[in-house]
């Protein structure tokens, strides 16, 4: 029967995945956020001039908002921008594609990981293909994965690359030619996403340690792989050493720059020196506070509320939902237990768990934890656990001999299945039909509508002054994007000027970007900013609204 063919099932899974990622793409989430417009416009700029907004030729790192983004996503967006123009869909499409690829890859990775044969769960032989398909299905419908494969987040491509690295490495143990490919792809992640700059190298080192015996046998291939990876990473190393600002972002989000953390310990230290408390002088130490903060950041990713019920900031999850389905809760724990004691090559098992345990490492040294984007690499490991949990539970129910017990378990399963359907429909409703209402402010809704209006009014005014303070920070980029400003023209004005977030932006056309309070310019002036900052008495006042009806942006004549 064709329904028993795993590859056929995988095809169906992929169709589901494509549907869930393509449906309403560009309109849910309702608008592009800062990073998405930046990635998009820079792709547009490089496509037409070979240079980014700063006028830098083929950059490896985008200075962007002085957060120095790895540039690879922008290059991936060049073909889609070339094909579809500068639109929401064009910017988000590479992420969708890699999201779907991840699902196919997970299937093959899991089969490879479990040794390609049958595995024994509760004394029953199960084809590893079925485990792969189930995990792929769970990934295809996963709220966490859908969230990030429908928006232009580098992290999502990074996840797909990490899955590929793992798969190719395991393949490479059998057929050495895959080894250099694995390292090459892994090295690309350095140019993809900040967290993966830490994660992927650590994971490759862990793999190399775990399989050192096998790698010693193919020494030449291994040396070549490392050399190849080094070549790919080299430009980044050179960049970091020659550019003092390259690590600005990393410093900005690191816990070690969090001064609040040490306030209490330093006041205690003061008390210690007053009272000559030697023990206290050792223990009331900011290094201990930092150490605790790192551990705290790490374990925060195992907060069950974060995973199942609340998520973190609004842009990272569907409204009033966590990152995973609540119905998966028990299966996660059963699955972890099953996988821990499942019989397959211990090195493979160790490599899986080292992947799992390394995921929160990059996020743990940052503030703002737990962080669904920085820890996105978790995604497929959870789905594998849950898939095993589901299979083990089903096998258990089928194996029960006692009739009454068996019957009540089956009844319970039917109720559980209904709740599962309820849970999934709830998610679909929250994501596709409630999200725009509840989260449009978080997605900076209103820019597109406002910009098209302002553009139509542009000829009537001498100067248009646009707010550039929170929440209108980086407003210039939205204008560049939605007005499709010719990159050659923009660069001829000098492009974006470096120098911190708050500096006045020179602007283009008759647009200026700065704080709109105390505007002293003369002539016909149009101001754009927070509705609260723009008096209702001004002429031609027009307000743009979020999708829940709250005022978002106001435009008026000064």
């Amino acid at each position, binding site marked *: 029967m064709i329904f028993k063919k795993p590859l056929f099932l995988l095809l169906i899974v992929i169709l589901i995945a494509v549907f869930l990622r393509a449906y309403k793409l560009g309109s849910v989430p309702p608008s592009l956020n800062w990073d998405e417009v930046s990635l998009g416009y820079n792709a547009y700029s490089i496509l037409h001039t070979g240079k980014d907004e700063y006028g830098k030729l083929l950059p490896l790192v985008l200075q962007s908002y002085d957060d120095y983004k790895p540039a690879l996503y922008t290059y991936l967006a060049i073909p889609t921008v070339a094909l579809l123009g500068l639109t929401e869909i064009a910017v988000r499409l590479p992420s969708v594609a890699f999201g779907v690829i991840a699902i196919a890859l997970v299937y093959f990775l899991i089969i490879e990981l479990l040794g390609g044969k049958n595995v024994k769960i509760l004394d029953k032989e199960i084809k590893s293909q079925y485990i792969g398909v189930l995990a792929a299905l769970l990934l295809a419908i996963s709220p966490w994965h859908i969230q990030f494969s429908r928006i232009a987040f580098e992290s999502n491509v990074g996840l797909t690359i990490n899955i590929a690295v793992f798969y190719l490495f395991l393949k490479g143990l059998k057929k050495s030619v895959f080894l250099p490919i694995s390292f090459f792809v892994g090295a690309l992640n350095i140019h993809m996403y900040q967290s993966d700059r830490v994660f992927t190298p650590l994971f490759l080192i862990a793999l190399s340690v775990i399989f050192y015996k096998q790698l010693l046998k193919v020494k030449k291939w291994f040396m070549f792989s490392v050399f190849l990876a080094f070549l790919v990473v080299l430009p980044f190393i050179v960049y970091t050493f020659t550019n003092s600002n390259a690590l600005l972002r990393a410093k900005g989000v690191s816990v070690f720059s969090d001064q609040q953390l040490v306030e*209490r310990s330093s006041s*205690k230290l003061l*008390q210690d020196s007053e009272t000559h*408390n030697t*023990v*206290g002088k050792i*223990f*009331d130490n900011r290094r*201990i506070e930092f150490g*605790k903060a790192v*551990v*705290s950041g790490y*374990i*925060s990713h*195992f*907060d*069950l*509320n974060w995973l*199942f*019920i*609340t998520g973190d900031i609004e842009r990272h999850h569907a409204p*009033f939902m966590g990152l995973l389905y*609540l119905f998966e809760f028990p299966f996660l724990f059963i699955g972890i*237990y099953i996988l*821990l*004691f499942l019989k397959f090559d211990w090195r493979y098992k160790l490599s899986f768990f080292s992947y799992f345990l390394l995921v929160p490492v990059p996020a743990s040294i940052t503030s703002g934890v737990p962080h669904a984007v920085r820890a996105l690499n978790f995604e497929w490991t959870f789905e594998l656990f849950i898939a095993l949990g589901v299979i083990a539970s089903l096998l258990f129910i089928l194996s029960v001999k006692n009739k009454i017990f068996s019957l009540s378990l089956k009844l319970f399963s039917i109720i559980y299945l209904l709740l599962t359907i*309820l849970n999934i*429909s*709830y998610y679909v*409703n929250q994501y596709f*039909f*409630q999200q725009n*209402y509840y989260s449009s402010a978080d997605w900076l809704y209103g820019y597109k509508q406002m910009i098209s209006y302002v553009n139509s009014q542009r000829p009537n005014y001498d100067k248009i002054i646009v707010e550039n303070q929170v929440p209108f920070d980086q407003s210039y980029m939205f204008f560049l994007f939605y007005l499709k400003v010719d990159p050659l023209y923009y660069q001829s004005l000098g492009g974006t000027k470096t120098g911190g977030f708050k500096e006045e932006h020179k602007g283009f056309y008759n647009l200026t970007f700065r704080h709109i309070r105390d505007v002293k310019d003369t002539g016909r002036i149009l101001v754009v900013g927070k509705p609260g900052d723009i008096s209702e008495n001004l002429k031609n006042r027009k307000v743009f609204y979020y999708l829940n009806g709250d005022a978002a942006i106001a435009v008026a004549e000064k």
Partner: protein
Amino acid sequence: MSGWFLKTEEMKKYLLLIIVILAFLLRFLFLGSNPPSLTWDETAWGYNAYAIGIDGKDEFGKFLPLTYIESFGDFKPPVYMYLSVLPIKIFGLNEFSVRFASAFFGVLSVLVTYYLVLEIFGKKQDNLALISAFILAISPWHIMLSRAAFEANVASFFVLLGMYLFLKSVNGKSYLFIFSVISFVLSMYTFNSPRIVVPVLVVILCFVYFKILVKNLKTIIIAGIFGILLFLPLLFFLQTPQAKLRFNEVNIFSDISVIKRTNQEIKNDNNALFSKIIHNRRLTYSVEYVRHYLDNLNPKFLFITGDGNPKFSIQDVGQLYIWEIPFFIAGIIFLFRKREGRFWIVPTLLLISIIPAGFARETPHALRIESSLPMFQIFTAIGIYYLFLMIPKKKKAISVGMLSLIIIVNFIYFAQNYFIHYSREFSGEWQYGYKEAVIYADSVKNDYRNIYVTESLGRPYIYFLFYSHFLPQAFRNEAKIEREVFGFVHIDSFSNYKFTNDIAHVREVGALYISSPNEKPENGKILKEFKLINGKIALVAYTL
């Protein structure tokens, strides 16, 4: 199998003794001065016990209250008061004797933990039992709750004892069953949480041990009837509006934002039927419940900062030690892998203990889930025990040494923060300043016709009763008492003390005023300042 730890039986006995002594020292040393002062509730326990010790009536004159003492209108379960009568008779009405019962039962909990672990995992697991008892003895969670008059700490002891006696009776000594029932019922007369935890636990135990219980039908029926009779008065009380008042105030189901939200969601779906199903408010409330429940398992709460309320945690150490993380996780895995004895009791009791806390808005809450102790510690102990069994013989000594070092370092970190910095940093949380103020006011009491006292720091009257050893009979005669609609009890005055919310508007010349510094009018002449340990002024005494 267990030989790696200690060789002889005698050494183990000494070790248990040492652990209990350690627990005793950590709970009784400086008990009267750290935490630095008494909270309202502690003071109320003390004064009510004092009053009962004099004429058998509580502060308001209720004779031997059985189901509740009214106190501030929070209807405290009465057991802690009765337990404090004797210590107060012996040691006098002071901080130490108020906290004595909690500390004393805290030490006993450590001892019972040892025997409970033996009942759960079998007599051979005495090493595991010793490790469990040791971890509870040094647990920041348990130490902090044992060092203040928290009735929850005593209730947890009764739950633990009841559990132990139940297992003992299932293991053959069925006459103990009745004592198990008594202990369980007592816990319900001691604290609120066991009123949910114990019934759930008992139902599960009866279900699991149905066959054994049926064999001893006579004992069971007698004990059961006895238990129900003991429980009846409480059951009647729980049906009264007073008892429900406090619950309604703190529970999550009175949060109307959920209803607003689901209504909006249904509106967003154009009132479709399916939307009414998936956005049913009962479902949403259930998820809210789960969220509050899981809050109590938040890793940061457990291992890094502990409860946000400084009375339950010093904020520098979690409810558990940070070093426990790997062992706790290993313990969970080993428990389910080995499935020794009655292993299931450990996770079951832990999970049941959190049920009541999930209904409350304030989560996580170290106090309301305290009956989950020592299950956390047992998990850690299992992790340590089995991980060390796996270590090759030659490396055992060095591993034990390493772990001991880590435990000691982490313990010193906790202890130096708790015994040296804690009282200075958080004395305000413990209503520091009242004692000095009362002693001062009491000494000059006869010089003034009226003494006005602010209520801005909360419930001052009880401190005046407590620290001036005011005679309960006199208090009952003189006090002007108001009872508000929501059950709160308000003392307007007794003797020449007047308590007011609005001290700034009292303009009586020649009276003594005690208020917080920002309430003092500018022309007030300060007679004395009462400072927190960190130097901040808590209260001032002044005249106009």
